């Protein structure tokens, strides 16, 4: 992600507009390519050398430095440095500083040069380093007087070598840059509202996975043909908090996968004025995360196999559409099941971190007599006395609910399914 000093935006009439780059800008694409090449070719080189070379590109190419430094930052985020401690150098320092401390506290020097000479001498006397005298001289231990100053702290981050770099195309980097501009703004937001068309299924599933993964809360309502999803965190009820800014910024990646979307968020930098961020799919940012639309998650595959082994009557597939609930609310289930007779039902799973959601769902379905949703609750969650009591008291759950340990089992689910036919 980009730090605040690398964000580019304009504010006008209470609106904030991130300043995107054109992913087709040939000059910028060429610069991005150069920067990527520098990172690709810097394996095993120290961080300082990499930064020096990329700085040269930033300084010598046309265009705003802030954009180029932003690209550099995104590439650095994809770079892994060797942070393993240089034990040999650390051991050398321990012994050397013991000696210099002794010199400084016990001996009087006429001037600095005399002290430096004495210290150089100590560093050069490998004999004083115990076991090191028995071993071949290492590159890491300076013995030449001239090297001493340079090598004394040669394990600082600027000297760390590059272990790996996850490369990408120049165009992809520019899309990432635009995404990071939005994410950088969302870091300073307290909630966001998303309007989605009820169409694509795999993308929606991914969106809700991101939502849950980022520990956010949502309220889903239908407004004409669009679903309106308000996303924030538990404490938003009390504070205009940016506590969930990082979660919202991460969540934005899933928004990009939706074919039609509108996003609004309130943004506030420190204690300054508040701005509205408005974006929709016309911003043209391509999704930056790998998408596995054709991919069927392992848990679904396992569930499908288990179900097939037990019965041919039901087909299971990942959740693909919103389910209307009482009170003008909606939920997005984990699985949907279809009986050969055409009867359809859905399952929503509640894991240990979905306590608040479960209480809400039980409350929503309390008066419901017809099944709209089967509830699967983690046994871990059931350990909470409050939850256990709520489940025991729920007539809906006793009829249309089950508990599971790691993944739902067909043994517990099948009786409920059969009762629907």
């Amino acid at each position: 992600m980009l730090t605040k000093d690398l964000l580019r935006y304009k504010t006008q009439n209470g609106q904030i507009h991130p300043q995107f780059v054109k992913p087709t800008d040939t000059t910028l694409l060429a610069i991005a390519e150069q920067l990527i090449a520098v990172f690709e070719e810097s394996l095993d080189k120290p961080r300082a050398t990499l930064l020096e070379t990329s700085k040269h590109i930033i300084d010598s190419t046309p265009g705003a430095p802030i954009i180029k430094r932003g690209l550099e930052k995104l590439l650095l985020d994809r770079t892994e440095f060797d942070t393993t401690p240089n034990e040999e150098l650390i051991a050398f320092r321990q012994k050397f500083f013991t000696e210099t401390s002794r010199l400084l506290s016990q001996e009087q020097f006429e001037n600095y040069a005399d002290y430096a000479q004495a210290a150089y001498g100590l560093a050069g006397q490998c004999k004083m380093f115990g076991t090191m005298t028995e071993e071949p001289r290492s590159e890491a231990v300076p013995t030449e007087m001239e090297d001493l100053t340079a090598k004394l702290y040669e394990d600082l981050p600027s000297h760390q070598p590059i272990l790996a770099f996850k490369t990408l195309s120049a165009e992809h980097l520019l899309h990432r840059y635009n995404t990071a501009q939005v994410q950088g703004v969302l870091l300073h937001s307290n909630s966001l509202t998303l309007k989605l068309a009820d169409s694509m299924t795999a993308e929606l599933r991914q969106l809700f996975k991101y939502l849950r993964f980022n520990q956010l809360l949502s309220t889903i309502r239908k407004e004409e043909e669009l679903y309106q999803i308000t996303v924030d965190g538990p404490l938003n009820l009390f504070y205009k908090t940016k506590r969930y800014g990082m979660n919202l910024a991460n969540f934005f990646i899933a928004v990009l996968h939706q074919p039609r979307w509108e996003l609004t968020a309130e943004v506030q930098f420190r204690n300054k004025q508040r701005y509205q961020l408005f974006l929709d799919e016309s911003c043209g940012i391509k999704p930056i995360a790998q998408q596995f639309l054709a991919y069927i998650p392992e848990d679904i595959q396992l569930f499908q196999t288990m179900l097939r082994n037990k019965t041919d009557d039901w087909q299971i597939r990942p959740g693909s559409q919103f389910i209307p609930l009482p009170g003008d609310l909606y939920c997005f289930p984990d699985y949907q099941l279809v009986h050969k007779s055409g009867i359809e039902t859905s399952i929503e799973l509640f894991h240990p971190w979905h306590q608040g959601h479960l209480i809400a769902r039980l409350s929503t379905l309390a008066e419901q007599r017809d099944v709209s949703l089967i509830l699967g609750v983690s046994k871990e969650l059931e350990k909470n006395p409050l939850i256990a009591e709520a489940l025991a008291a729920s007539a809906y759950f006793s009829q249309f609910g089950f508990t599971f340990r790691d993944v739902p089992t067909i043994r517990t689910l099948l009786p409920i399914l059969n009762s629907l036919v």
Partner: protein
Amino acid sequence: MSSPLKINFDKGTLILQNIPETLQTRLPDIRWDERTLTFRAPAYRYRHIVSQLRAHDIAYQDTAREFTVKSFTHEKTMSPYSYQTEAIDAWHANGKRGVVSLPTGAGKTFIAILLIADTQRPTLVHVPTIDLMNQWYTVLKEHFGQEVGLYGGGYHELKDLTVTTYQSAVMHAPYYGNRFGFAIFDECHHLPSDQYQYAAISSIAPFRLGLTATPERTDGKESRLYTLVGEPCYEAKVQELSGKTLSEYRVVTIAVEMEDTERVRYEEARRAYLNFLKQERINMGTPRGWHHFLWKASQTDEGRTAFKAYLAQKQLSFASTTKQEWVWKLIQRHRGDRILIFTQDNDTAYQLGKRFFLPVLTHQTKLKERNDFLNKFRDGTYSILVTSKVLNEGVDVPEANVGIIVSGSGSVREHVQRLGRILRKQEGKQAVLYELISKQTGEHYVNKRRRQHDAYQPSNRTPIFK
């Protein structure tokens, strides 16, 4: 029969169910949450809510609280000073909440140890740095002789006594905020920041203690601290304890002349920087001045040049050749003493470390070597330690008796903290803090700003060296 009122902990908040209508407006900070169709309150309101329920004799089912009374046996037998006893009594009298302000070296940690033993609740200690986390870990282990958990800096282990960093607590308190009955906030002036406050908000701990040398903040947010931790309940000033429980001390300011060549480079860089400020109409005297400058400087090549000029003039005043000569003189003058050398930035710290072949402690120093440096300084193997900012706060180096500030910020707090590093009482110790100030540079004004503290009252000041 109606269902009993239920309180549960959920992601740093409390979920309340079956609240009688008459009570819905009387419980502090509870709100209806449409997202979960429950009443909700911030976790830190737990004590107030439970107190209200008890006061109204309302039965409730509490599944929020996941801690019970724990017996902590205090293994070290040490007697508190009278002011420490006063602080402890004041905290109890304040309802087992509140902020204790004592100068560095006056034994705030010991007060916390005694209060942990008193309150007998699982305790979470919040600290701003990894160094302080390690120090608290050692102290708690020594005093209570039991396993101590660490959360932060790569550790994820919760015990009845646990130390965490503020940063880690912000992220994880929503999950474990109901497991501790006593929350201690060391260097608690950090707590009211935009993010750190959620470490306290997301915890239900009814008993809370804030420890600091100076609770005041430049942004005036200390009132937030008092809301979350409790009102100030005890304060003692540095002069009150100097010579008694703190060492006697002197502050010596040395005005240093730059070498001619450096002076020319300094003037040139400063002129370029000031011209840019003027041209862009940036007023560095305003609270937003610095951000304004950073923003403008990042927009154009000219701005970038101005920023480089800013860094250059600052670096020259921070680490001039003459300052290094003064460092050498002072090292020689204090042969046999335990000296801490402070710098404003890491570059200067390493520059000095390389020049004088000294151990340098910065946030870049790996944990193992960091502990090794501190231990060797404490046991006298190393007589001098160079550091930038990591030793500003809390880390205990009682043996240090000489401080040399080669460069620093205008922060009064930072200066008082640095002074505090050399004030811990030892038999016959006379502490001295040197400030090296480059003459006729911006540092002069920076120095003037940071002296606005009562620790710098006239009796402790030595005239500026000419």
